[in-house]
């Protein structure tokens, strides 16, 4: 696609085919001879890993659909039947459920890599936007897939997420009704989610094809962020990057298999092994780990519509990222300030993930204790004053009862208890959310104008040769 084709048909049949359907030429030019920067590091192997993860999910998903029963009376039991009775069903089911997490782990690394090396900048804006579309489709697919086992988390997850749409003014409630196909999450919901969960991965596959197409027009970005200028900057994709991708993929599959065989339940929530019950909400509703940061952003905003807008905005901002970053330098390797902004951004995302898994009122920081003063009547009939303190309000209440038992009298006047200074999970989430948006909307536009970037090498080949020479000298 870049440069003239180097394909030479090897046989009469290939020549014949090449004149009618140049599919071998396409494969040769795209995946064998494709000139690829010679300095791609292991962060660049996640594209291949993600293609692999998508194929694994599609293949295991097709198998599961052969045994799964999409009805509210049969879904939970059919998953149990897959695990217990279907030959190798337990294996396929574990791969599919663990695979979802692995898919997201890989996509987050892939996205952060693109962010760090500036892979969204011209001429790769469409490539980046297609990636964000894939990510959105992945989230929708994962969410609907999580509903299918019809456990407690499935049911209440579906209820909570569809309720998000009711925040939209005027049309919100009709949209929710339309999504659910009823007045509540029910059989109709489960059936349509199953249908869409089967469909969306193939749409993902289609967008992946576009994504790779868009990649092959300008070619790969690279850790230096400089354009390819001469053939010395590149190596053919095969065998150099086929083998590197294969090695990285094998390491990834090792981690994948460790979860499948030794901790298949550890990435899910125990409550999803309780059959769905519309009468009882679980004590804590949390999404799967990969959606927790967005859940934290949702809860950080005290207003229903505002929370929903912030959550969708956190993904929406990725679409305009190519035009927010004003820096001429692609790779953050040469951007001393943006680099630290990025490290902080990764930390903020992880912290948001943590917040999403906690109860919003939990204190993350506290200075001082809860104090309560009270008056009581002593055995002699006099009025005395006492005080107790505790680290939590629940403990304070227990202390109060213990104190009553100790002094052998009831408290006659309870003064309002004094709460210590606290930062709660919800407040922490608000600060983190502020940085999340600030990074994209303020930091990147401003830094590009004021930052003094380091010296960017002229060509990949030069930089690589210099690095190698330095390494040799120091050795």
């Amino acid at each position: 696609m870049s440069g003239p084709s180097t394909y030479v048909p090897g046989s009469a049949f290939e020549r014949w085919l090449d004149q009618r359907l140049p599919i071998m030429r396409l494969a040769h030019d795209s995946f064998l001879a494709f000139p690829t920067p010679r300095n791609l590091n292991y962060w660049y192997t996640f594209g291949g890993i993600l293609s692999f993860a998508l194929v694994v999910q599609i293949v295991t998903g097709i198998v599961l659909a052969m045994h799964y029963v999409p009805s509210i009376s049969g879904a939970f039991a059919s998953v149990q039947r897959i695990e217990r009775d279907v030959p190798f069903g337990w294996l396929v089911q574990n791969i599919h459920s663990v695979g979802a997490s692995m898919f997201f782990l890989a996509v987050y690394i892939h996205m952060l890599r693109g962010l760090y090396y500036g892979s969204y900048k011209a001429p790769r804006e469409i490539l980046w936007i297609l990636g964000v579309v894939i990510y959105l489709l992945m989230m929708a697919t994962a969410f609907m897939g999580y509903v299918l086992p019809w456990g407690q988390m499935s049911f209440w997850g579906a209820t909570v997420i569809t309720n998000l749409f009711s925040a939209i003014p005027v049309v919100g409630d009709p949209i929710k009704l339309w999504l659910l196909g009823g007045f509540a999450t029910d059989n109709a919901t489960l059936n349509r989610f199953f249908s869409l969960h089967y469909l969306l991965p193939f749409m993902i596959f289609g967008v992946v094809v576009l994504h790779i197409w868009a990649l092959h027009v300008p070619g790969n970005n690279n850790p230096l962020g400089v354009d390819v200028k001469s053939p010395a900057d590149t190596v053919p994709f095969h065998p150099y990057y086929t083998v590197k991708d294969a090695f990285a993929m094998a390491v990834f599959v090792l981690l994948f298999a460790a979860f499948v065989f030794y901790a298949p339940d550890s990435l899910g929530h125990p409550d999803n092994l309780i059959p769905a019950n519309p009468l009882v909400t679980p004590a804590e509703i949390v999404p799967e780990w990969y959606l927790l940061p967005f859940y934290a952003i949702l809860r950080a905003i005290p207003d229903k519509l505002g929370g929903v807008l912030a959550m969708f905005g956190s993904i929406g901002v990725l679409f305009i990222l190519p035009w927010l970053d004003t820096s001429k330098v692609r790779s953050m390797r040469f951007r001393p300030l943006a680099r630290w902004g990025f490290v902080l951004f990764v930390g903020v995302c992880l912290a948001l993930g943590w917040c999403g898994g906690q109860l919003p009122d939990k204190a993350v920081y506290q200075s001082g204790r809860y104090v309560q003063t009270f008056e009581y009547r002593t055995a002699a009939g006099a009025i005395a004053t006492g005080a107790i303190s505790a680290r939590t309000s629940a403990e304070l209440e227990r202390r109060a009862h213990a104190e009553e038992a100790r002094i052998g009298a009831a408290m006659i006047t309870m003064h309002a208890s004094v709460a210590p200074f606290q930062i709660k999970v919800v407040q922490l989430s608000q600060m983190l959310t502020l940085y999340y948006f600030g990074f994209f909307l303020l930091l990147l536009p401003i830094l590009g104008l004021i930052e003094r970037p380091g010296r960017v090498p002229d060509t990949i080949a030069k930089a690589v040769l210099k690095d190698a020479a330095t390494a040799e000298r120091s050795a």
Partner: protein
Amino acid sequence: MRRGMLLILAAFCCSLAAPALAASEARHPHPQAWSFAKPLGTFDQASVQRGYQVYEEVCSACHSLSALSYRNLGDKGGPFAAYRAKNHETGAEEVRIGPSAHGGKFISPNDNPAVKAIAAKFDVSEIDGTTGDIVQRPARPADRFASPFVNEAAARAANGGAYPPDLSVITRARHGGADYIYALLTGYGEAPPPGVEEVPGKHYNPYFRGGWVAMAPQLTPDRVSFTDGSPSTPDQMARDVASFLEWAGDPKAELRKKMGVAVLGYLLALTLLLFFAYRQIWRGEKH
């Protein structure tokens, strides 16, 4: 910078492994020394078999086990798996059942005498092919475990409004798994802390969320007389039934762990080979 990126990745993996859960108000169960807890651990079949006896004689009065069929008891790796083998002393063919049975010819659970006898103790309903009436017949190995109640409403009505949960995957559906089951069953008898209001008709148990559970203490001494002569203490019964429920919730666990060794070994070899191939191909190529 590269090190920084690796640290981020490590933190990412840690955040993966840490279960995302909020604080729970129940007391945390103390971890027990289960034979199956280790990465390559197996079930103690004698304990699983005794645990089945506890389930049958105590739990099954209220709790269903709907994902299991009687035949599962006689599956390979199940507590009543049967093998036909030659007795080394007498030379006669004999059927060995349960923990001591290994080697010989595996007997299909449908023909397993122990499983057939267990199934026959329970009645299941069936539609009579000629009259259309619902009739009761003794269960067969292929039948699902009989439920103590016809539906949830009946179960609630018989239990003061509380629903005795199905136990098929109970160890995977609760934080703490088998430790939780053991702790709950042996955790009665403590006085509630001062200030905790008593709930009429419920029983205090610090391991249960909220502290008040509808189930009365069940495993009183000598509630079950074990066929293998084990002492019928509450501790023993709780331990055994937790073992049984762990097996019932994940009967493929032993197979899974064994297969995992082979798969991880293979992947390790492939990874090494790919690494050497990678080094060979990139030899002399600056990058």
